[in-house]
């Protein structure tokens, strides 16, 4: 009897091997890793008086810069919470009630991301300005007697931020909610939970992965965004990203700008580390 021929078909079938990742690895190495490394070097000037960590010391000890760092984090936090409050109901509605309108809602949720940030931000300026639609409307209805200056306040910044960021929140939450069986909610109802307690005990804990992902995305993106602050803040809000922009445009202190960029980078890395850790803890029960 001839020995059995090894069956080639036993090897697991794969469409693509690991080598297919090479182009993207190459691309990221050249256009992402190298610039980052260069930035790191730029932020740590070797031969200068203040030492290698001069810029970082300045950033983390000078009261003015520490204040801006804290304000940056505060703005990101508030924008994140606002996006969560606005986004969760939309995501819930999309998944549970929209049915065949789901696609339409996704479209309208994503549309802000497809318009240029300049257009979008100027749109808000027009709406919120002294003689804009908002003031005209409020005046017409007699709700206010003189026009508000909302376009020059921090509220305008938050409106602009939430507008852009809510899609990240909605899509993160809805993708997780989609996996939460509606029968779990029905089970809770039959077992005696009202709508609110069903939400608190079943829906919310089961969608926590989506909330974490959405919040971290929004937080990180807010940290790095500056056009909204620049165009809608009217100087009321000063964040690290704005400061980087100013370093480049006005003072041209590239080293300091690089240091600030790296701090933002670190915050982002910490956030994603936290997300990985949280999801690994909660994700296993599925």
């Amino acid at each position, binding site marked *: 009897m001839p020995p059995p021929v090894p069956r080639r078909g036993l090897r697991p079938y794969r469409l693509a091997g690991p080598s297919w990742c090479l182009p993207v690895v190459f691309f990221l190495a050249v256009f992402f890793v190298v610039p980052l490394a260069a930035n790191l070097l730029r932020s740590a000037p070797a031969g200068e008086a203040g030492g290698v960590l001069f810029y970082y010391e300045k950033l983390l000890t000078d009261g003015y810069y520490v204040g801006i760092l804290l304000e940056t984090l505060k703005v990101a936090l508030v924008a994140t919470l606002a996006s969560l409050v606005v986004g969760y109901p939309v995501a819930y509605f999309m998944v549970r009630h929209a049915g065949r309108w789901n696609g339409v809602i996704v479209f309208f949720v994503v549309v802000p991301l497809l318009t240029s940030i300049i257009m979008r931000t100027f749109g808000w300026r027009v709406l919120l300005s002294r003689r804009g639609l908002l003031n005209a409307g409020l005046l017409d209805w007699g709700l206010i007697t003189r026009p508000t200056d909302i376009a020059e306040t921090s509220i305008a910044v938050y409106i602009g931020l939430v507008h852009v960021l809510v899609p990240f929140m909605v899509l993160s939450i809805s993708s997780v909610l989609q996996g939460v069986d509606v*029968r*779990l909610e*029905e*089970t809770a*109802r*039959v077992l*005696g*939970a009202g709508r609110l307690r069903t939400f608190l005990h079943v829906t919310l804990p*089961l969608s926590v992965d989506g909330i974490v992902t959405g919040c971290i995305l929004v937080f990180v993106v807010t940290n790095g965004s500056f056009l909204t602050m620049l165009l809608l803040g009217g100087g009321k809000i000063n964040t690290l990203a704005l400061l980087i922009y100013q370093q480049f445009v006005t003072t041209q202190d590239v080293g300091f700008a690089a240091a600030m960029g790296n701090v933002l980078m670190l915050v982002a890395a910490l956030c994603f580390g936290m997300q990985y850790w949280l999801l690994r803890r909660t994700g296993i029960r599925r």
Partner: protein
Amino acid sequence: MTKPGVPLRLDGISKSFGGTLVLEPLDLDIKEGEMLALLGPSGCGKTTTLRIIAGFETPDTGSIVIGGRDVTELPPNKRSLGMVFQNYSLFPHMSVGENVAFGLKMRGSNAADRTRQSRAMLEMVRLAQYEDHAVHQLSGGQQQRVALARALATSPAILLLDEPLGALDKNLRERMQFELREIQRKLNITSILVTHDQEEALTMSDRIAVMRRGAVVQVGHPTDVYDRPRTRFVSEFLGTANVFTGTVAQAGDAGAWIVTLDAQPHAQGKTFAPEPLAVGRRVTLAVRPERLVIVPPRDGVIRAMVKDLVFRGSYFAYELVADGHDQPIFLYSQTRQILAEDGRVGLTWAPESAVVLGDEA
């Protein structure tokens, strides 16, 4: 643990979705402690009925009365129900014990009571040692029992079972049928079982309501529905039925009727009928495969030829063809019959084994 059960009455409930009537006005009285099966193919309205009882859907007309209390307008959480879903629907973020105690927690009982009660329930389904396990660590059958324990922990008035055993493999399903039935009897809890599995309905319920296209076709004791199906649909949905058409020829002995079958000119089958049959009336007869008897060809009501024989473990299944009859005829026998070499046989049946079917609704 036995307590007086609570009756459930459905009074003319109906439901349309987007202009399509999915449930015709339906009246059902379920006695205290009774297990009623809603049996039918998918889309027959059985699940809609269950969802209306649960309070997930509002009926367009009619009312639901649990123990004399009209609950039609009440939300699901105020109806005192227990429910077991096909996919068990256990909360993945809670332990087994927390799942069972959930209903008690929602009812505001304190932690000590909850633990005691949920332990008692887990003991009832023989899973006490799994209290602290995560849900996904249990097998399908165990999850099923946790779901049952959870549904019963709050001592609900009515137990709703939505294809409760559908996801289990055959052996386990049969064991669980008896176990579930035993617990239901012990607690004397009024129950509705939704299923498309006729065997499950026959095994588990006190009465079966066979549904089709949003209407109940027949309600009765399992043996009634099985042995005296009212329509062809019922006879074929509850197992296999051999259906013959014919014309009433004359009255036979002892209240039986003799029917000339269309298939073969000499074929004269006997049947009983609930009311007298007019001679010359067209009738449809149904005979269960296990009620057909193989006899020598000349003694048979109808002559047929064995086409196939399949051993099915507890019985032999014969597939036969008869001249003039376009459907295959099925016959189940406990023993292997000795056949003539050419495979030609006669088939006959006792008059009480044939049922006159009514017209389809």
